[in-house]
């Protein structure tokens, strides 16, 4: 299975682009989308999910243009939007069966599948209560369950871990790792560690364009040998920040340990292994 994105642009007005000449090929496995707010991640996901139309460019799923034939991807799509809602008067069973009807799936196994999914997201006990009574985390679980209703081959998760606690996040990562064996999974998150632990490939976006893409190792390699740590006086931190890209600071007694990225390390610095977060911050900073 392969999604080919060719020169996609989404223009809002003459000078404002949400996406500009974006090209990428996505194959089975997990693609992590990283980028600051306004980078175009959600727009790209909406276009792939056929909710939004690009101004120009094409997207193909296994050779079929999904703008011309959106139902080709819709049949195999599981989509969890960033900011979705629910019908407050329906209970979890009713809501999931409604979504199943939307996706065009049914049959005798549907009820059992809904029950299994509700058990999986641990909502069985509250499944007969109106969804309007659910907490934010419970609604997010309903969102995850609906994305899996139709045996999806393309899964798009936009900020899926919002509202989930650390243990739930870990379970979610396990879940999509399992799914990635047979499906294309596109995942966006502000939490780099969520991407770092599960994504096979990473795409870093900024200002509607693709800065870099590749395996995690390939992306991290771009900052190899440029990450350092140095112990500074409190008073020197501000000046140091103005001259270097400081990615993290931590207090150590009456001093500050600064982690930074530079081609020219400051005196007293020690090299540190690069992480995906370092690469992300370095690349988006350089692209500004």
């Amino acid at each position: 299975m392969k999604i080919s994105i060719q020169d996609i642009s989404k223009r809002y007005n003459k000078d404002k682009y949400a996406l500009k000449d974006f090209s990428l090929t996505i194959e089975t496995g997990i693609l992590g989308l990283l980028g600051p707010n306004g980078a175009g991640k959600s727009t790209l996901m909406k276009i792939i999910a056929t909710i939004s139309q690009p101004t120009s460019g094409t997207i193909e799923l296994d050779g079929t243009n999904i703008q011309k034939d959106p139902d080709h991807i819709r049949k195999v799509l599981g989509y969890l939007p960033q900011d979705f809602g629910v019908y407050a008067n329906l209970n979890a069973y009713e809501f999931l069966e409604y979504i199943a009807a939307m996706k065009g799936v049914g049959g005798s196994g549907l009820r059992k599948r809904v029950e299994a999914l509700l058990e999986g997201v641990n909502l069985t006990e509250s499944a007969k209560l109106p969804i309007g009574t659910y907490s934010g985390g419970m609604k997010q679980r309903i969102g995850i369950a609906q994305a899996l209703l139709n045996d999806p081959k393309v899964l798009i998760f936009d900020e899926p871990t919002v509202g989930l606690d650390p243990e739930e996040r870990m379970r979610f990562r396990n879940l999509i790792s399992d799914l990635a064996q047979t499906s294309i999974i596109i995942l966006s998150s502000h939490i780099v560690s969520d991407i770092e632990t599960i994504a096979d490939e990473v795409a870093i976006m900024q200002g509607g364009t693709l800065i870099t893409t590749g395996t995690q190792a390939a992306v991290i390699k771009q900052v190899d040998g440029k990450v350092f740590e140095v112990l500074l006086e409190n008073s020197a931190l501000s000046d140091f920040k103005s001259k270097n890209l400081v990615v993290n600071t931590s207090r150590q007694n009456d001093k500050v340990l600064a982690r930074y990225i530079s081609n020219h390390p400051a005196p007293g610095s020690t090299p540190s292994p690069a992480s995906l977060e370092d690469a992300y911050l370095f690349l988006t900073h350089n692209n500004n």
Partner: protein
Amino acid sequence: MGEFYQIVVSDYKQRTRSYAFLVTLAISLYFAYSFVPLPNAEYTTVRAGNYIGVQNSAWLGYVTAMMCSIFLSMIGFYLINSGIKKDTDTGVGMIIATTSVSNFKYLLAKTVSNFLVLLSIAATAFLMSIGLFLIRHAGYPFQVSQFVLPYLIITLPSLFFVSALAVVAEVFLYRYTILMNIGYFFLFTFIVSQQLFIAPALDVFGVKPVTVALHETVKQHYDSTNNEVSMGYIFGHRNPRSTFVFNGITWTAAIIGARLLYMFGSLLLVLASSRFFHRFDIKQRFKSKTRKKLSAIIAPVQPLHDIKLSELPAITPAYGIAPFIKTELLMLIRKGPRWLWLINLGGMVALAVAPLSIAHQMILPGLWFLQVARWSDLATKEKTNRIHYFSYASYKPLTRLLPAQILAGIILALALASPLLVRCLIGGYLSAGLNIIMGGIFIVLFAVAAGMLSGGKKLFEILFFLATYVNLEKAPVADYFGGMNGGTAYTVLIAGCIGLLAVMSFMLRKFELSRI
């Protein structure tokens, strides 16, 4: 004062930048134009017996001001009665609740904002009345005070009262919008029906001094016993030669004082309601049993289990729309308080036992109007509930989901009308039965099209209210269900409207799907 001003201005901008406002403005302009009919028109709006005024400044100014006072009080309430709800839905209210803005200041700002919205519409009606005077050019002198004073003294206090009433209604009935909408309909209908007999102190719309003056003027000019003043769109029954000269009234301190008292009373209402305002501390209401059950469940939320997709029960393709219709019907039925279904059942019983003409002309439109909140967001609820991310990415949303929503709405309309339909069938009134079925289809499609056109439910609510009121007044112009009209031409006309609305609905949804 700065924060008060900011709330008013922001709220006003937010509301006037909506399609519902623009459409209401356009409708108001049309009605403002019709407030003073031409001498050879087939209807009158204000008349004293068989007499109408000549088209001088006073007649145009007073008649449009009075009609505007009543008309805007009628539809304006529906346009402005969700200012607080908007703040609740958007979360802005939570931010306001954490500021030093007092309850009274906030509610007063909402009242003023409501008032400004209605004032904007009244201003266009005012300009229209002057424009009509200049265009018709009947040879009478232009007297600006005959336009300004009636609007200032009659219309503005009424609009301020309605603005305050909308805020008070939101404070007390914020969980019962259906009750608010329907309750106002009956309140308004009652007040208007009593308008000509009411004591001056209860003259909400401020028209009593003028109707008394009209009555007296006609009495002086003509020795006629038939000089009772009537207001509203009255078709036929008038002699075009019977005119009189109306030169306005003397605005006494008592009249002005009474109108100011209404505005002051409105402020007192807002002040009193501020003591009960929830200040956005709104909790989901449950019946005690559900709440108990829920607290037991929510407290120990368990983490996600491991889900193996490959081990989940298999599903098969199912592209029918029956599950949609079932769920849409379920949502229609569950919407609103349960006791409303008792009233619906009462209405259905009345349809079964009342004289046929009353059941068809009066009870059916009333019963259907009770469903206004169920139908008003039939095709817009995806967006307001942010479900459209799912539905617009679903399999064939245009040809599956939208027809299901329309069908569910029609099923509800026809189920409610079923006792009357059965009577028509038994009595052999097949044409009347057909008109009722088409009326049900028409009103549902109208709700869908108006919702998608305006992007919300307000437009439909306002127009449905207007149509129901006009129907209960037995004016045939808004008869969509064959209560007063009949014959092949009428049936063809409604069928054409249905076709047009259906095409419009599908085109609008197609446009929505391409523009999200």
